């Protein structure tokens, strides 16, 4: 009876100990670091299934080996005609036991799924747009980022959208994943109590899990979890960063920062990419070398840029290419660039154009060359 009495106390101690953890659960043989409020339960379900399945695998393998060794035909052996060919009790046993076990698995999965599916009421909402091939995270105050920044210690909901093909938002350390479906809105939520600060090495990972083409494996981004005060500072700074860059430094400071989004497809050194390289771009749009380059509709740069033409200035053409990229396609490139309307504003476009004009001051990666 003593034993029985102590069990509730032990359970209570265990329960009390759980929230006191100060570090995420470490990576094991099967699961990676677990850093969300649901990861513990999911890992427990995983371990439980592993143990049960491991038991059955060992059982089947041992029986297999024992029977083969024991009943292996030796030369001159008579064919044994013994052994039953039917046994209702056994048949029911191996129908009912797997049946019960799978219902237990189902129950674990069902309960865990309810937790994953049901976001608490007071979530902090972040709008996520997946595109070929990157992510845009938009915060309630209008701030935007390419990596995800989330406050620690409170539930965060990601509202997922896709603006071209299917993608899937996967954060392994939080054990969450959901498809981003064009034309629909889906969402996931998590709460992480283990801040990473702005340290790249400590940050968690975010990946695309639904095949989306050439850049599918390059959609990996970081998840920075900041304590609430730091997060509040960051999100305000992030919303205003472009305005705080002095006009004179717009091209050299804001340009490269914005270019990081473009680097997936547009090289600076003439390397063939998914979109046209920016090398020589300013000459081309300005009536210089390469300005007879064709668009897919047969026109060239000179046909559409100039006084009285579709675009009065080269700047107007580039701005429109950022916001309506499908309008004129440089041959032979396809219509794959997503629109950046609402993500890059007038000032952002000015910074990018400024960078294009002074490309000789940047290296191939977009870093300003030190003077």
């Amino acid at each position: 009876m003593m034993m029985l009495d102590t069990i509730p106390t032990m359970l209570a101690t265990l329960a009390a100990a759980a929230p006191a953890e100060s570090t995420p659960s470490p990576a094991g043989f099967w699961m990676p670091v677990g850093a969300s409020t649901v990861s513990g339960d999911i890992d427990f379900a995983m371990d439980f299934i592993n143990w049960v399945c491991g038991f059955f695998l060992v059982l089947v393998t041992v029986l297999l080996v024992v029977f083969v060794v024991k009943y292996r035909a030796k030369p001159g052996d008579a064919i044994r005609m013994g052994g039953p060919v039917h046994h209702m009790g056994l048949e029911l046993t191996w129908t009912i036991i797997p049946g019960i076990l799978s219902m237990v698995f189902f129950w674990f999965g069902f309960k865990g799924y309810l937790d994953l599916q049901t976001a608490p009421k007071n979530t902090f909402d972040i709008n996520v747009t997946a595109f070929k091939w990157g992510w845009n995270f938009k915060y309630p105050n209008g701030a935007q980022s390419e990596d995800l920044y989330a406050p620690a210690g409170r539930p965060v909901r990601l509202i997922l959208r896709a603006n071209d093909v299917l993608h899937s938002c996967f954060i392994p350390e939080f054990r969450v994943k959901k498809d981003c479906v064009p034309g629909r809105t889906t969402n996931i939520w998590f709460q992480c109590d283990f801040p990473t600060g702005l340290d790249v090495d400590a940050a968690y990972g975010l990946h695309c899990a639904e095949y989306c083409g050439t850049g599918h494996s390059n959609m990996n981004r970081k998840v920075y979890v900041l304590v609430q005060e730091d997060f509040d500072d960051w999100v305000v700074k992030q919303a205003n960063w472009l305005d705080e860059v002095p006009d004179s430094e717009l091209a050299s400071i804001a340009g490269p920062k914005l270019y990081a989004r473009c680097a997936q497809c547009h090289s600076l050194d003439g390397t063939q990419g998914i979109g046209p390289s920016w090398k020589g771009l300013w000459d081309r749009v300005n009536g210089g070398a390469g300005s007879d380059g064709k668009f897919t509709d047969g026109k060239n740069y000179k046909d559409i840029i100039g006084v009285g033409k579709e675009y009065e200035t080269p700047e107007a053409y580039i701005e429109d290419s950022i916001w309506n990229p499908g309008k004129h396609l440089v041959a032979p490139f396809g219509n794959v660039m997503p629109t950046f309307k609402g993500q890059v504003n007038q000032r952002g476009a000015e910074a990018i154009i400024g960078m294009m004009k002074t490309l000789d001051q940047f290296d191939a990666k977009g870093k300003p060359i030190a003077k």
Partner: protein
Amino acid sequence: MSTISKAAPATAPHGGHVADENYLNCSRGFLSWILTLDHKRIGVMYTVSVMVSFLVGGIFALLVRTELLTPGPTITESAETYNHWFTLHGAIMVFLVIIPSIPAALGNFVLPIMLGAKDVAFPRLNLFSYYLWIAGAVLAVTSLLMGGFDTGWTFYTPYSTTTTAGGVIPVVVGVFILGFSSIFTGMNFLVTIHKLRPPGMTWFRMPLFLWALYATALMQVLATPVLAITLALLVVERTLNIGIFNPDMGGDPVLFQHFFWFYSHPAVYIMIVPAMGIISELIAVHSHRHIFGYKFIAFSSIAIAIFSFVVWGHHMFLSGQSGLMNVMFSFISFSVGIPSAVKIFNWLSTLYKGTISLNTPMLYALSFLFLFTIGGLTGMHLATLSTDVHLHDTYFVVAHFHYVMMGSALIAMIGGLHHWWPKITGRMYEEKLGMIACVLVFIGFNVTFFTQFMLGSQGMPRRYYDYAPEFQTYHIVSTIGSYIMAVGFFMTAGYLLHSLFHGRKAPANPWGGRSLEWQCASPPPIFNFDTTPAVGDCYDFSIVKWDPKEQGYYIDRSADPEIAKAEAERGHTHL
């Protein structure tokens, strides 16, 4: 008393019983093959075609594995090229290899003989099915010439309707036509099994391979038309810009997934159920032991065929479909596990107190038992909702379905090929080489795919050209495994081809089988049997006797009162 001979049948001298005229030498010339209506020749043509496709699909697999040796570029600088490779690997292996491999290739050869029939019910339709298969394969090649396709074998929209790869439409039309090849074969088998069973063969006297082919044919006939509709809609959307799946045109991409998996989930069982049938034959014959739990094995095939139609939603747990649907699909998905477990334990019990001949077909059957157990058990992790959220679309899924599709379905096919090889070709292969190759394939397979379970659960998504450096060790191990497997398969091809010209002549019944295909000559005469033979219990091996002169087994038909009874009944019906 029948005995197992030491010499059985590996080192016997020439002189096994061979009919003078058989289906291989009764007529000659190219036309006699391509215009044949003989199910055996059609089966052989399917086998050759499927094996050539297997070689091509395997080469793409090796390219994919080699590319993944290092993060970033390894043998190709272009992620697009890699995407084409894994798409081709998947599409070829699924549509050209695994789906037709057992029913159309081995099934075509074995099914009518097992029934004691002269041919399938509709021999012309059978040949037509084969030419549809060829047409589908030709369109797949055409697609490569037109720029290939990079959609993944699942053709998910809107990617497949917007990708710039030029070969999407020809390959989709190809798969559409392959579907009809599959439907016609299924219909043919259903009718053959219903109408052409011999005297004495009631439904519960059918060899279990026939039960499995019957369940498979049901699924082929009922599920494949949905694939045809889906692919037709895809072509309509891509060519005529009618919005069905593309949200930009008012369509819904999730609808495509529902359509696609309504076919493709049963398709998974179209691949595995006939494999289970082969395993029932291999384990019973090579253990020289009555199959355990015949009715449970037979009904579990039918149960799997039925359940297979109501679990497609588990491919879409994360697609944004409603939570309630996810919970219901999760619940039903577990139900498929139960008939699978029933089969495993019945096969194990068949080994108990058997007289086990450890030869190449049996080694493949035992490999199947182990690999299918892993494949089935890891299905539990994926049917469980909360763990699936983490594992979905990762290498864990890749590992799981390779254990089931390759480790189980294809391994059973290769095992069945060895089992019926003497019957098909009239030649014995070199037993020792067969066993070595099987062990190589088994080891290589596990090294390749077991590592991928850890890759996936540690968080590596599938279909990645580039990956984080911490995953590289697993990838190197996996790639080495694939090379070991390749050596095993090339070795298999080598000794099988060698046996065609230099193999010992096969006796009619080299293994001690009891079903009807072992009661006609190897290779069989053109019409299999002069008169439809009566059958008894095809798993009762007590009347199977060893004949030292023939170096093979024979069936002492006079010792079975049931055969006598069936033959007497036939006398009354004046057949």
